[in-house]
């Protein structure tokens, strides 16, 4: 299994990355940026399909919640009704998952390629020898030049700059695709998730090689651009307003959630 993974996915990507760095004047940082952009561009059709499926699923949420309330005590009926709803809307409930599943091995391979190519320790360098093709271009690039914009790509960034960039770009990307939930509990959970993930990745950036953090930042930025173009703007992300916000009444969150739900149902009826 490991051999198939290495031969079919990891090794071609790894050698491609190293050869690319040789072409780009032995600049491995630039190679990471170019390859990340290239891979993300190649995967645009899949990203687009995933976005569309997720969007359709989100639009169906109010109706699904209604069904869940209605058939709370009859799980079998609930399942049947949900499937009927999906069928009517022409949605495959796993439709937003499979593009993600196809992309995952490529991301993982890219991820591993960067770590292995950087070969921070002598043990890593030895391990790398068993993955390389007998190309002069690859042999002459090893060991890679790890200097890039003042960073040592095989070592963690001693400043907080990369960690902040990773966290911020990931947060913006997640905010763009995460629809505000109608249920306040769900809302709280999703905002917690959109906050926790960037925070944890930012935290990991402090101890991971900065080459990997560079890949995260570039991947996030490209993701934001793709999302901006395919989703027609900033999506659900709202820039913080500089104007003072009017103070909300004590019951406002619950009321506004109900209002949002009513408005959503109204708009659904109009659409129907």
């Amino acid at each position, binding site marked *: 299994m*490991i051999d198939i*993974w*290495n031969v079919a996915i*990891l090794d071609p990507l790894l050698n491609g990355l190293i050869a690319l760095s040789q072409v780009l004047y032995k600049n491995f940082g630039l190679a990471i940026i170019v390859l990340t952009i290239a891979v993300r561009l190649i995967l645009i059709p899949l990203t687009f399909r995933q976005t569309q499926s997720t969007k359709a699923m989100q639009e169906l949420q109010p109706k699904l919640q209604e069904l869940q309330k209605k058939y709370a005590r009859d799980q079998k009926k609930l399942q049947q009704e949900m499937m009927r709803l999906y069928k009517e809307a022409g949605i495959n409930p796993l439709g937003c998952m499979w593009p993600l599943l196809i992309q*995952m091995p490529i*991301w*993982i391979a890219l*991820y*591993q390629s960067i*770590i*292995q190519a*950087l*070969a*921070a*320790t*002598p*043990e*890593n*360098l*030895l*391990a790398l*020898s*068993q*993955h*390389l093709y*007998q190309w*002069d271009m690859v*042999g*002459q690039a*090893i*060991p890679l030049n790890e200097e890039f914009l003042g960073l040592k790509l*095989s*070592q*963690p*960034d*001693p*400043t*907080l700059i990369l*960690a902040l960039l990773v966290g911020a770009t990931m947060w913006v990307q997640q905010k763009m695709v995460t629809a505000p939930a109608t249920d306040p*509990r769900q809302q*709280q*959970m*999703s*905002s*917690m*998730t959109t906050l*926790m*993930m960037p925070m*944890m*990745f930012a935290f*990991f950036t*402090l*101890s*991971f*090689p900065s080459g*990997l953090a560079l890949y995260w930042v570039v991947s996030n930025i490209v993701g934001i651009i793709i999302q901006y173009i395919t989703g027609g703007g900033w999506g659900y992300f709202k820039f913080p307003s500089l104007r003072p916000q009017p103070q909300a009444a004590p019951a406002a969150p619950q009321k506004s959630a109900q209002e949002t739900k009513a408005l959503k149902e109204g708009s659904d009826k109009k659409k129907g």
Partner: protein
Amino acid sequence: MMKNLKNYIRGTLTAVILLLVFVMGCSDLSGGGGCSGTQAQGWSGFAAYQKDICFGSMEGRVIALNPQARSDNKTFPADTEWVYIIKTSAPGAACGALCTPSASAAGQGIYGTPAVVGDLIYVGTYTGKIYALNASRGVVRWIYPREALDSVGAIVGSIVTDNQSLFFASSNGKVYCLDAATGDYKWEYQTSNKIWITPTLDNGILYLGNYGGEVFALAADTGRPVWNVQVPSAVASSIAVDGDVLYFGTFDSYLHAVDKATGQEKWKYQGGNWFWAKPVVKDGKIYAACLDSKLYALDTSGNELWKYVADSPLVSTPAIAGTAIYLVGDKGMLYKVDIQSGAEITRTPVGYTVFSNPYVDGDMVYVYARDHNVYAVDMARGVVVWKFSSYLK
């Protein structure tokens, strides 16, 4: 309040699960060794001091073993044995904002084989320190750099000595010379890239190569460069000297033969992978172990005489004793091969990955394996006579 807490926990758990799925990708799917790569653990070989063999362990200890005491299964330390524990206080080579020295990703590894001069044993560490220890008791005589938090950068090669001075190279691209008795600084020479190989000293000249593909000769007494040439790829192996020729491997899978006086290339020979181990030269024949799992025997014109195919990559430098050459495959197989014909005489498994150089004493071969055990192998009988764990609980 409880509801908020529940939501908080649920949100956190979701984030953690998502993150774990992502991070799993760089764990061990390809044996790559995790998101930050494999820790630097080291692969020290052995140096002899009287009846003991000394090595640097993967846990950052210098250990003197008495083979007879180990063979008699005595409790360690017995007779002349000792252990010196290196306290990690240098910042190491790969430590981020979150790293503390003790938890450094740099590890505590010792890669170089210790050097012995008189009653002192010298060890260089990956955390960038040189330790001089009393070879009979394992007591520290001096440490360089003197300040606890100072480091010369990760040292991967071994130390060489002319009895008065020590020479070593570092990941910071510098070659250093220290006084062997006192550890006082003598000179340093800055190169353009990191050096992970052992300098070779021959007739007052040091020969080295770095990861920028520079090969150079320095005067050992002053550090003054004698010559400097550029090769197409980074230098992978330490340099062997024989007569007027230097031999070394590069990362483009070539073994190079260059003129000792000028650095001009005489010939090169291509293997199937890197010549990582230092070539060994005897009686006008070059024996080069390669990561393509082959040992190549070449004549001084670069013609292949024979090649021996092992079961796994040959990482460590072979040892010649009598009419045999001893090899270790990185999967832990020891081979004894006839030096004239390349025919296998015998093989013995130690059962675990070995990167360290074998040390041969008669029929006994000692290797330090990645399971942290020293194996004493009787090659005549094909058995592991004893093993010793460097964990030292």
